């Protein structure tokens, strides 16, 4: 048994809890990166969990529950991928493409089922309103937590309990007969964040802010090349020259975000002052002082 019973229990409990967290209080525990962290912690390999969770986070970056539509369940995907990756010894990138993504999209059906089940409770609430049974209204309302929780916990429990040997044989095949597919899955895992970014751009006003998209990309592309090159140089130097003990860090993403923040702050200043100018213009027009120069 690759995954111990207490690990299955804890992972199942987390799967049942996270959906409630996401729907209500939103601490962040219901994000793929935390799903990876929690699953990694339970499985005893935080790094693998963070890699899988982080990648899944990027893949679903732009996917939200807009207008109550179902979204792919990256959390359950991350939990299962992390559990099997650590438990059976599967490369994290392979686990992302081979387990996390398919599981996440299959789980859409469970989300629909959960939301559907709640319609039943909604009708019970209607009849309790007629009876003026206040406790009954609240009880039937809170029952909704069950449909939500079970819709995530049950599939995760089943997959962890019975999926082990199945995943094990897949890993075997991927590392032997179907090496090309195994490598391909790793590459796919690395490409997947691109989908998250593209979805996000669909939701953001790209055309309006195009210059900033270019700026963000170019600044980062250049800096990351510089930082990576210096690091490679440094590592090589350490191996060659004995007296060379400097260490170089990788590019800090927070610094890039600060540049973006500065630009956004300027924009905020500009747009929040703009309405006043418009009002001024309008009053000028009323007085008949049309400035042709301004056009």
């Amino acid at each position, binding site marked *: 048994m690759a995954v111990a019973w207490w690990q299955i229990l804890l992972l199942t409990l987390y799967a049942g809890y996270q959906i409630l967290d996401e729907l*209500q209080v939103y601490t962040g525990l219901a994000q793929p990166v935390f799903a990876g962290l929690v699953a990694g912690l339970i499985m005893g390999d935080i790094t693998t969990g963070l890699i899988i969770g982080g990648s899944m986070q*990027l893949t679903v970056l732009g996917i*939200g529950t807009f207008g109550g539509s179902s979204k792919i369940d990256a959390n359950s995907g991350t939990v299962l991928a992390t559990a099997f990756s650590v438990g059976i010894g599967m490369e994290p990138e392979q686990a992302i493409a081979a387990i996390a993504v398919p599981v996440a999209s299959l789980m859409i059906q469970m989300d629909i089922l959960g939301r559907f089940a709640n319609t039943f409770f909604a009708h019970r*609430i209607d009849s309790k309103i007629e009876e003026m049974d206040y406790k009954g209204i*609240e009880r039937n309302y809170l029952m909704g937590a069950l449909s939500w929780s079970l819709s995530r916990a049950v599939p995760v429990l089943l997959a962890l309990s019975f999926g082990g040997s199945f995943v094990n044989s897949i890993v075997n095949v991927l590392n032997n007969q179907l090496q090309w597919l195994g490598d*391909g899955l790793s590459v796919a895992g690395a490409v997947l964040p691109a989908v998250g970014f593209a979805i996000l751009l669909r939701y953001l006003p790209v055309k309006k802010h195009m210059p900033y998209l270019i700026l963000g990309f170019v600044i980062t592309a250049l800096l990351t090349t510089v930082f990576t090159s210096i690091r490679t140089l440094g590592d090589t130097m350490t191996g060659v020259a004995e007296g060379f003990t400097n260490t170089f860090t*990788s590019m800090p993403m927070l610094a890039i975000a600060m540049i973006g923040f500065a630009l956004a*702050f300027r924009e905020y200043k500009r747009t929040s002052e703009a309405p006043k100018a418009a009002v001024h213009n309008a009053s000028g027009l009323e007085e008949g002082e049309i400035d042709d120069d301004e056009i």
Partner: protein
Amino acid sequence: MMKSNYKLTKKDFNQINRRSLFGFQLGWNYERMQGSGYLYTILPQLRKMYGDGTPELKSMMKTHVQFFNTSNFLNTIVTGIDMAIEEKEGIDGQDTVAGIKAGLMGPFAAIGDSIFGALLPTIFGALAANMAVNGNPLGAFIWMLVNFAVMFFRWKQLEIAYKEGISLVTTMQGRLTAITDAATLLGVFMVGALVATMVNVQIAWTPSVGGLVIDVQNNINMIMPRLVPAAIVGIVYWLLGKKNITSTKAIFIVLVVSIALSALGVISK
């Protein structure tokens, strides 16, 4: 017609906030979405206002269980405005309340989805993910802190909305537009930055022309580093604009094409 004489207290606000924060979407269903959730958050207050067993209470409960769907980060703004009206007008305000609920849920859904559903997850989720793939959980905890700050505002907004009433919506409008504009700019900038760092794939194809081996990736680097990830994102963006392409379909298309190109030796990690 009976007017309600009940005035909401600090305790009531806390109760509504507690119910909203921990239970607002438990009853989400396809038929009326957050309808029963809206009733659940204010049920104790309705009972105090109209009195148990009165026909007014029953009629109001029926009003509040109707279809409702908005951002679960901003729902208590609607609740606050609603409570102020019901406290003042009682059952006479029934139509006003129903109208305000229907009128405000759309705009607040849009604002809430873009700020809390897209922007914060982009900026902080990206930071968290960026650190996570390097094995560092710090970014995830920074994000969690931000979420707790958001929770604080969610808790505060109910009372503000209750005091300001419907005028709040107009005063908020101007500032919100400016904030949304600045925030989307930051979002777009960050996506640009992420494309440059988080899509780690390159061209492995090295064709030889007349004995001369061409390193395609090296040539691309001379034009612009990280051009391959940018091109991939561009293609997926274009793909998502097609009819019948959902995000889930796009993910699977990328999965299959990546495996194929990798097997052919065109791209590698």
